[in-house]
């Protein structure tokens, strides 16, 4: 039923990334690219280096070797907030929401980078500041509707069940209107129904906003259905890269997954 999505040129390229902590080699010479508007999955057994890869892209870790090119330019030694500023948003495997703040405030913080007016005007809520706040609020309300969390606007995030917190995490990342969205195990710890919902949201985000999505998952099943291309990591090395079907047929991948008991 779905028509053709326009998958574009590579927007993010990682080349020869190696990262080690002391003697532990977390990533060894990993290269792949992410094309604009695609859903790109990075999978692999536990400890394969998926999260390290994400943290490298996100600027939390700085690799010893290799380069990252984003939108044509190389970026070097950027810290997380600079990466965020350049249009890359992320969600967290172990939820890093502001638990004491309401759902609405959490998502509004995602707009922080785009706030322009000065403090005094903000406090008085007059003139351009009011207009700006309303604009941001409209964007946020659209996301709230999109992710179907209208019933929880005023609820402190810490009181929501886990599946909903994951949705708020996604909402906050979306509020940044990112070009590239990094999702760190968005389906971890969810039941089947919640997983299906999350898949639907990821597909809808990709479809509706054209957001490029890089998705890390430990569990192959769900991801294969929604990704355009898949990178497979094992012990910090890339062992497969291609369409879900190609990856499924790849002997090295089969061995890696069979070698790990689930």
């Amino acid at each position, binding site marked *: 039923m779905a028509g053709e999505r326009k998958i574009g040129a590579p927007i993010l390229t990682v080349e020869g990334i190696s990262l080690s902590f002391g003697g532990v080699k977390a990533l060894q010479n990993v290269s792949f690219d992410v094309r604009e508007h695609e859903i790109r999955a990075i999978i692999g057994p536990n400890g394969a280096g998926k999260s390290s890869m994400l943290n490298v892209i*996100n600027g*939390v870790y700085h690799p010893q070797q290799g380069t990252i090119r984003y939108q044509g330019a190389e970026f070097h030694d950027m*810290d*997380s*907030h600079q990466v*965020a*500023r350049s249009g890359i*948003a*992320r969600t*967290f495997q172990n939820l*890093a*929401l*502001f*638990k*004491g*703040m309401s759902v609405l*405030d*959490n998502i*509004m*913080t*995602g*707009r*922080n*980078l785009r*706030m322009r007016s000065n*403090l005094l005007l*903000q*406090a008085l*809520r007059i003139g351009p500041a009011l207009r700006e*706040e309303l604009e941001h609020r409209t964007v946020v309300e659209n996301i709230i509707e999109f992710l179907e969390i209208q019933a929880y606007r005023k609820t402190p995030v*810490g*009181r929501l069940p886990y599946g909903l917190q994951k949705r708020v995490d996604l909402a*906050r*990342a979306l509020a*940044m209107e990112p070009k590239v969205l990094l999702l760190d195990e968005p389906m971890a710890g969810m039941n089947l129904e919640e997983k299906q919902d999350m898949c639907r949201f990821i597909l809808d985000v990709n479809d509706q906003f054209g957001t490029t999505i890089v998705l890390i998952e430990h569990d192959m099943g769900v991801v294969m259905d929604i990704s355009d291309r898949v990178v497979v990591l094992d012990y910090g090395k890339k062992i497969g890269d291609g369409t879900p079907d190609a990856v499924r047929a790849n002997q090295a991948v089969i061995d890696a997954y069979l070698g790990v008991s689930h």
Partner: protein
Amino acid sequence: MRRNWPVLLLGLVLLIGLILPLASGAAPAGFYVEVLLGGLMTGVLYSLVALGFALIFKASGVFNFAQGAMVLFAALAVARLAEHMPLWAAIVISLAIMVLVAWLIERLVLRPLVNQEGVALLMATLGVTYFLDGFGQTVWGSDIYKIDLGIAKEPVMILEQVFQGGILVNKEDFVAALVAAALVAGLTIFFQKTATGRALRAVADDHQAAQSIGIPLNRIWVVVWSIAGLVALVAGVIWGSKLGVQFSIAQVALKALPVVILGGFTSVSGAIVGGLIVGVGEKMAEVFLGPVLVKAFDLAGGGIENWFAYVLALLFLLVRPEGLFGEKHIDRV
């Protein structure tokens, strides 16, 4: 069932202590209210200093020993600058100086020490404390200076119809209380209603997440320390106009420690309520409990004001370590 009874018990004892002098007729109502108001007034000052502590602790996890020194430093700046210019100009310039101090602290102390142990940061703020004390005297001098707010100091007699003999209050105290309340209200609006306030709350909640959505920690720290500087300035001016600007301010400001223990380290409302409780409590204890102890145990008496707050804080650490309004860590599964 939550284990609330030790706190309830403690609260009950305090409450009885508060009411007893009045109920037993040991103190005439007018005098009693006077003591109460005096206690509240001191409490406001404790609250302001504690507020500075709590803000910084919440936003950056640093226990800022230098808060007292900042109060002294700000008061000195205002007092000395006011000798050469109108008071309002002195206050504005002092505020600018406090922002500069905040920026320097972030740049020279916090940033290099980021991701270090809490103890290292604590030691660093101790260093800042002594530096500010000393440097303040180097720059501004070490005499006792006056800050004159231009408000009549003569006490006013009010409520003569209600209490026999009326109540003596200081107009300056009233103004000070109003200013402090306005400051707290302003801060509340700032935190709840502005994007920067939201960012501050976000940083206080989770550093890493805040950073990943593009909130620059360094700038937030400068903002928080500047606010702490503003609070210190207000406290310094009020204090200085009441008692004069002198070195002992920094010592008295240490009373904020038991106050934040009482109120909870991360709670703004805790700092305020805690400050008022300590202020009233120690004054009441000094005036009414003191003589009783003197009579009963044949002691020299006096000095209760100096240790009351710490004993109270100790009791709180025993029964409710997270303080009155502090976060209790309940993990939902």
